[in-house]
Each structure stands twice: as structure tokens, then as C-alpha cells.
């Protein structure tokens, strides 16, 4: 009798666990970026980080066992991500056809990430009034967040933005990373340019430093 009651208890429990693991998979699939335990917990309706981690690890093990081109990884900061294994990426990358954003909004996004925290006013001044629309789109997509500070609206790039481009979540580090990569591009380009024409406009030099 004890056994049967235990069985009865366990069966729905197992189903629950399966459903929760599948929900974590669903979340990671749809997000396409690393998610933290809190976010995953909210999806499966659990506040226990320990439990969420356990379930996510079960999903990870399941993927390890499968013959799959996808993998679930646990990152150092206890976030989990579902992604394509790198050795498959090169073969299928060309099937991706749609950009995240069109040119205009992408420029506005890059500008915000570079100048963050930056007032909406400054973004509009630098990018033109069409940037209002871009900002709305970027906020909707979760790439930029807006904060009212006094009379100003302050914009900054979100963690989702950082994850998408593989940048640090820390705004200062993120900015430094951007500048470093940008400088290396700028230098390469400068070399190319100076090879083409030796006469360089002196005024433009310091401007490219930033």
C-alpha cells in the first residue's frame, strides 16, 4: 500500500519535472541568449535557485546524451544558454538571412552603447529626429533601456544587448571593449587610407581616437 501511494505521488511529480525541464528548454530556445536562474525560475514558477539549477543541469545532461548539434552550457555566472555547437556553426551560418536591425536603428544602437549612459536629447542631436523611432524600437526589442532622471531620459544598453554581441554586462567594461575593437578597426582603416593617400587631414586625426 505504501508503495502504491508512493507511486501515485511520484508519477505526477515526474511529469512535473519533465514539464519544467521542457519549459527551461523552451525559454532558452526562444531567448537564444544566456538566462539567469531568476528568469528561468520565473518561467517554471519556482523561487528556489538550487532547484532551477538542478533542472537546468538535467536538461544539459540530456543534451549531452543526445546526438545533437545543440548544446546547453552553464556559464560561470550560473546562467544557462542553449546554442549551436561551434563545429556546426560554419556549415549552417549562411542560412541566417535576416539582420537583427536595419542600418538606421543599428547605428543608433551602436551610438547609445558607445556613449552610455546618454540622454535621449544627445542621441537625437547626434542622430537626428528619426532616432526617436529607433529608440522606441530598441526599447521594445529589449536592446536599450530608458530611465527618467529628472527632466532627462537616460538611455543605456541592456544585458541582452551585451549578450547578443558577447560583450560584458558592466557598462564601463562594455564601453572599453567597444572602443578597443573600434580602435583596432580604425587603425587598420587608417593604414589602408594612408597607403592610398599620403596627405592626411590633420584635424581628423584626434577625432578618430575615440
Amino acid at each position, binding site marked *: 500500500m505504501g508503495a502504491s501511494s508512493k507511486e501515485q505521488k511520484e508519477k505526477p511529480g515526474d511529469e512535473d519535472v519533465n514539464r519544467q525541464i521542457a519549459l527551461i528548454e523552451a525559454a532558452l*530556445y*526562444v531567448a*537564444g541568449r544566456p538566462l539567469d536562474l531568476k528568469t528561468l525560475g520565473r518561467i517554471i514558477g519556482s523561487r528556489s535557485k538550487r532547484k532551477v539549477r538542478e533542472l537546468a543541469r538535467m536538461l544539459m545532461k540530456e543534451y549531452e546524451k543526445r546526438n545533437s548539434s545543440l548544446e546547453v552550457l552553464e556559464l560561470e555566472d550560473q546562467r544557462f544558454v542553449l546554442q*549551436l555547437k561551434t563545429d556546426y556553426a560554419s556549415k549552417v*551560418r549562411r*542560412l*541566417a*538571412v*535576416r*539582420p*537583427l*536591425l536595419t*542600418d538606421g536603428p*543599428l*547605428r*543608433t*544602437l*551602436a*551610438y547609445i*552603447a*558607445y*556613449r552610455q*549612459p*546618454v*540622454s535621449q536629447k*544627445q542621441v537625437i*542631436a*547626434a*542622430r537626428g529626429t528619426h532616432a526617436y523611432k529607433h529608440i522606441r524600437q530598441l526599447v521594445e526589442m529589449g536592446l536599450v533601456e530608458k530611465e527618467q532622471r529628472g527632466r532627462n531620459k537616460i538611455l543605456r544598453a541592456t544585458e541582452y544587448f551585451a549578450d547578443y*554581441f*558577447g*560583450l560584458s554586462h558592466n557598462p564601463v567594461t562594455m564601453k*572599453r571593449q*567597444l*572602443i*578597443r*575593437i*573600434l*580602435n583596432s*578597426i*580604425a587603425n587598420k582603416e587608417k593604414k589602408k587610407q594612408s597607403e592610398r593617400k599620403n596627405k592626411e587631414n590633420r584635424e581628423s*586625426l*584626434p*577625432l578618430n*581616437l*575615440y
Partner: protein
Amino acid sequence: MRTEETDRPFYFHPPWNILFDPQMLEKINPWKINLSFILLSFLEEMEKRDVIDFRASGIALDSSATVYLMKSRLLLKLEEPPPPPREPNPDYVPPPIILPLRYELTTTTIQNLLEALEDAIKTENLFKLKVPPRSELLLAPQEIVPPINVYLMEMEEQMSNLLRKIRFFIKEGKIVTFSKLIRGLEKLEQIRNFIILLFLAHRKKISLWQKEDSDEIFITLGEDTPDGSFK
């Protein structure tokens, strides 16, 4: 076993509660109240429960009169009563389609982002943001050109001097700002220092920052000069 909920008279529940809550009654659009349905069901419910509550009936009647009054007032204001809810549509609008959720790898890379950033920066009004703390410093070029030429000749030396000074400040654990670096210097010296800073930044010996709404320039050691090295 009786809960508080069951202790309350039935007419305090929807749909009848509208007649017993004057505040709610005031807020609602009278055209949305189907009086005959509410009153009939109210009577039926009382019959079913075999309790005739004259006081409640009186209130219901009073509220109904109020609703009629509200309706006639709206009519007097030439406000059309809303069309009957189930009027056939001129054209059939199907229900919303829910798009299936599919992850899709997008083609935008960090390279694209940086190219976009370059474009954005090129078109930005850079002078507004990049002028040194006191813009009047750059507004007197005639005066500063000759000394700069001398300066350029000893640029290497000047750069290492300034870099040493910056490292000293960083070693002390202070934030190095441009104004701190030039404190006590004459205008011309300040300009020279600024130009050397630009050269240092160009060589990635340092990085320069500005915060929004501030003219201050912040200085950190660049990637070629990691914080720990004081060679």
C-alpha cells in the same frame, strides 16, 4: 463553515452589485447596463432563495431609476445610444493569428555593430563633445601655433613625461581627470598637455573618457599600458 463571503447578501455579487454600489454606478457607462436582465434575475434569485428583501428591492428600484435618468440625460445631449453589440460586421475580420515561436539566428555581428558605430560617430557633432574643458582655449589658434611647433619636436619626451605624471596619479589611487592633470598650469601649458594626451591616446597608451553633461575628461591607462606596469 460559513465564510464571510457567504454571509454577504447575494446581491452584493455581480451582476447585481452594480445597483448597490453608488460609486460604481456613477462611473459606468449607463448604456452598458442591461437593466431588465439584472432586475429580472434579481427577482428570480430572491424567489429562489425564498427571501423577499423589500429594502434591497427599494434600493434596486432607486438605482434603476438613476440608470434611466442617466440614459435620458445622454440622449438629451444628443448622444446616440451605442449600436447593439451583435450588429453584423460590414466585413468579417478573422481572429488574430498567433505566430509560432521560432528562434532565428540573425546576421548582425559585432563587426556590423562597429561599422554602424563608426558611421554614427562620423556624423555626430563631434566638436560639441570633444572640446577640452574650456572651449575658449582652442579659440586662439594664432597665439599657440609657434610654440606647438617647438613642442612637436620634443614630442616623445613630453609624452613620456606626461605619461609618468598620469601613472603617478593612478598609483596614488586617484581618479585622473584632465583638470587635475593641468591644475596650476598656465593656459598654454594646458593646451600642450591636451595635445600630448591626444597623441598618447592615439598610441593607445591611455584612454580618454567623457561623461555626459560634463566637460571633464577622464584618463585611464590604455591596453598597451596595463594598470600594473610602471616600467
